[in-house]
């Protein structure tokens, strides 16, 4: 039995913001199925009472001294941006009433049109 269907992989691609092609989907569906069946072996371990480990080092909140230090200049911060305008990052259109349905099939954004 397969662990994951082609439709589920398509859904994952949408959640991951990856506009994969149909051909990619065919390949990934088979490969992810093999990988998932292999990694599902973690389920064989009886670990109900075992606490999870997220980090090998105990994590405590670290606060730096409240001293002013220079950061990146505006030009440095924008230097790698694919597009900028008026000293700001320029992004593609975010809201528009005429927006076609998003890949997840949601309707147009509400409220701010």
């Amino acid at each position: 039995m397969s662990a994951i269907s082609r439709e589920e992989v398509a859904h994952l691609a949408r959640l991951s913001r990856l506009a994969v092609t149909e051909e990619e989907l065919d390949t990934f569906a088979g490969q992810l199925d093999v990988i998932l069946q292999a990694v599902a072996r973690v389920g064989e371990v009886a670990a109900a009472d075992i606490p999870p480990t997220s980090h090998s080092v105990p994590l405590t909140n670290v606060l730096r001294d409240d001293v002013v230090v220079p950061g990146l200049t505006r030009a440095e911060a924008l230097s790698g941006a694919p597009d900028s305008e008026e000293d700001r990052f320029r992004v593609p259109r975010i809201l528009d009433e005429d927006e076609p349905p998003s890949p997840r099939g949601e309707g147009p954004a509400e409220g701010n049109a």
Partner: protein
Amino acid sequence: MADVTRMTATEIAALIATGEASAVEVTRAHLDRIAAVDDRVHAFLHVDTDGALEAARAVDAKRAAGEELGPLAGVPVAVKDVLTAKGVPTTVGSKILEGWRPPYDSTIVRRLRAAGTVMLGKTNMDEFAMGSSTEYSAYGPTGNPWDLGRIPGGSGGGSSAALAAYEAPLAIGSDTGGSIRQPGAVTGTVGAKPTYGGTSRYGLVAFSSSLDTPGPCARTVLDAALLHEAIGGHDPRDSTSIPAPVPDVVAAARAGASGDLTGVKLGLVTEFSGEGAEPGVTAAFRDAVDALTKLGAEVVEVSCPHFQYALPAYYLIAPSECSSNLARFDGVRFGLRVGDDGNRGLEEVMSLTRDAGFGPEVKRRIMLGTYALSSGYYDAYYGQAQKVRTLITRDFTAAFEQADVLISPTTPFVAFPFGSRTADPYQMYLADLFTIPTNLYGGPGISVPCGLSEGLPVGLQIMAPTMADDRMYRVGAALESVIGTLTPPEL
């Protein structure tokens, strides 16, 4: 003067300190070597000729002014393209960051500069450090100097190949599941993964934040220790950096070189003995264990029953963290943007950018991680993997009550031919079978050459308790005193 490209970092530093060679001469010799062989090896993604010569001239000026030089002053180093260096292209082996010149230095690069080392350039790697062969680099693979038709390991294959091809005496790698140690093993060089938190992740492009560990690569154990000392130690800019001094790895490497391991207990991991490794790898490993015994070490068998679940647990934890970390590549602040025609919305541009900019392995892992973290699957996958991580840590703790270090082959197979493991991604994952437990535990591990199998290098892995990195350098140097360094055929 003898060919400096064949010398160790220790020897080069001594030449520069005594004035027998200038840092500029040493740097030019390595740049010439890169120009002569790198069109075939392809260890480098970017060679920073001007920056290297400028750094070398600064060292020579310091010496001329009578200033004291550090133990690695003037020694060239190659840096894996996962670490930022101000103004120098940093791609992480990905098209999504092609052309990006970071506006700041990573802590590792800053410390390399402070130590007076000379950065030659940035080395090739599997995209975002995901892979074991450099075949997932968006810029083409690196050849193994032992056989250019075979992989140099990965993800840090460029750094290890640069060492084996005598293009650099030192290199920096990063190890999330074996990306320093496995390339070291298959290129016949030394690669050390420090204790997690022992080296700073500031400026390291993140793949899996709870596992990523930058570390040293070299042709000898002592050189690796010197580089470890130069880059290690607490960094206030990394919240997971351990606020403690670097263990005395240099002294340990020097002590080990005497070849005396009296009183040292080596733990042979039962679950990793024999099974899973090629016969030639197992044979070379067993010979090396015999050699270590002759140096006075005692071998004890230790059982780590949960190690068999390390690979599955890793391939849930690392992709989960990757799916979160790589969300920052959204086509807004840096890197590629595709499909922004003025009509498409942000989400569509983002999806087109990520599909065009990421390669297949990165996409697989992002989707795998998204799956493991999604509601309904979280407990069975990511949550369960974190519990297995606890059990693996307990296995290590129990094993270190019986042994000072644990040993195993570094990787189950020698360098394989290009294309032999890319069709089935899980076959590639098996390269890290023996290295992954250490990453989940957070302790240090080193790969040291231990012999040949069918003319190709085999590595022996030494694993030590957290913040006892010195132990692996001592045992590694002792092994090196018997095996010596491995010399590949002339390119």
